C-alpha cells in the first residue's frame, strides 16, 4: 500500500506546479498509441497517407494525447485520485522526432467537492503547443 501515496485535498494549493515530463515522440509511440486506443485511421500508422494529408510523418492520435495528459496528472496526485474531467484544446501535431514537454499547475480548488483543476500544457520542441487544457481530479479529503 505505502508504495503508492495519494495527495490529500488539504496538501494541495492553488499555484502548485506539477513535475514536468518530457515525452519522446517516436514512431513506436505514435503507432502503438493508435493501436492501444483502437484508432486505425491510416494517418496514424501509414506515413504516405500522413504525407498526402500535408504532414511529414504519421502523427499522434487524440486518444494518446488524452492518455498522456491523464497520466501526467495522476502520476503526481497518486492513484486514489479520481479523474473527473479532461478538457483539451488541440494544437500542432506531435510527429516522430519531436519531444513534448508537459507542464502543469493547480489553478482552482473546490472545498465542497474536493475537486482541483490542473491547467496542463504539452508543447513540442518544433511546432509548439500540441495540447492545452484542464484536468479535474477529486482528491481524498481528511486524514
Amino acid at each position: 500500500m505505502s508504495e503508492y501515496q495519494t495527495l490529500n485535498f488539504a496538501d494541495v494549493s492553488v499555484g502548485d506546479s506539477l513535475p514536468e515530463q518530457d515525452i519522446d515522440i517516436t514512431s513506436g509511440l505514435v503507432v502503438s498509441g493508435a493501436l492501444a486506443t483502437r484508432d486505425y485511421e491510416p494517418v496514424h500508422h501509414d506515413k504516405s497517407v500522413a504525407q498526402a494529408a500535408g504532414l511529414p510523418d504519421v502523427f499522434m492520435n487524440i486518444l494518446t494525447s488524452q492518455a498522456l495528459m491523464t497520466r501526467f496528472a495522476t502520476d503526481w496526485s497518486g492513484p486514489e485520485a479520481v479523474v473527473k474531467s479532461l478538457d483539451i484544446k488541440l494544437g500542432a501535431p506531435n510527429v516522430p522526432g519531436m519531444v513534448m514537454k508537459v507542464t502543469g499547475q493547480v489553478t482552482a480548488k473546490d472545498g465542497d467537492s474536493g475537486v482541483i483543476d490542473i491547467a496542463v500544457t504539452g508543447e513540442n520542441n518544433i511546432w509548439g503547443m500540441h495540447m492545452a487544457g484542464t484536468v479535474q481530479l477529486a482528491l481524498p479529503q481528511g486524514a
Partner: protein
Amino acid sequence: MTPEEIKAFEDQVYAYVGKRVCTATPAKDAVNDTMIRHWTEVMGDTNPAYTNPEWAAQSARGKTIAPPAMMYVWNQEGYAVASTGRPSDAQSDLVQLFNDNGYTGVLGTNVKQEYFAEASPGDQIVMEMVIDTISERKATARGTGYFYETLATFSNQDGVKLGTQRFRVLKFIPQEQPAAAKSDSALEVPTRIASPRGHDNKWWWEACDEGRVMIQRCTSCQTLRHPPRPMCGECQSTEWDAIESTLDGEVLSFTCLRHPAIPGYPKDPICAVIKLDEGTHLVANVVGCEYDDVSIGMRLKGKVEQVDEKTMLPQFYPA
C-alpha cells in the same frame, strides 16, 4: 459559391444538427484487463488503480478500474477503418457533404470528457452519439469552414451513466492544397543557425571553436574592437592582432526574448550586452539564473560552451 448557393448548402448542413450518429451501441468487448494492460504499457502509465489487483483490493475503490481516458476506446470501430473504411452514418454523411463542397480540410480542435462513474473490468460500455451543434460559417487561420460538435454519452450495462464526450471538429476549405505525397522526406529537426564565417571574422569563430573568445586590437593605436572588422575606427589602420578575453564582465543591458519558441534555441533566452573587463562589448546569453535575477551592472563570468552539435558559443553565468 454565390450567397444563394451558400444558403442552399447550409440548409443541407444544418439539417444534420440533432441527428443520431449511433444509437445505444454496446462495445465489442467488455472492459478487460488485457486491453487496459496494452494501453498502460504504451502510455507509460503505472497507476496501480488500473493494473495492480492486490493494491486495488485494499484501495478505496476495492477493485481495479479502466483508465478514464479509455472511455471512448471500447467503442472504436477497429481495423475496418483502415481496411474497408468507416461505415456510413450521420457523421460520415455530413463529412462527405462538406468534402463534396470543397470543405476537405479536417482538424480536431477540442475534446472534453466528463466522468461521472468509473468502469471496471467486466463492465459493458454502451455508447450513443449525436451531432450536437454546427457553427455558423467562420473564417479561420486554416481557411473558411464550420465547426461541428458530436456529443457521445456512455453508460454501463446497468444503465449507470459513466460520462460524456464532446468532440469539436473544423471542416474547412484548405487555403493551400496539401502537397501530394512527396518523397520520403524525413523530419528535419531544426538546429541553431550556423555562425556566418566571412573573410573578416572567420578567425574569431575558429578561436571560439577552440574555447577562446578573442578581442581584436589595433597594432597602431592599441584600441580594442568587437565584432571583428578590417579597419580601426580610431586611426584607420588595417594592422591588427588580438588578445584573449578573460570573460569577466558585467551586464550593460539585457532583455528576454519571449514567445514564440525558436527551434534549436532554448525558450525565453536572456540576451545581454556584456561589458568585458578588457573594455569592449559582446552580445551573448546569460544562463544559469532566472531573468528576474539579472540586473544592470551584475558581474558575470563567461565560458565557451558547446550549445549544439556544431556550435561553440560564449555563455555567461552570474559571477
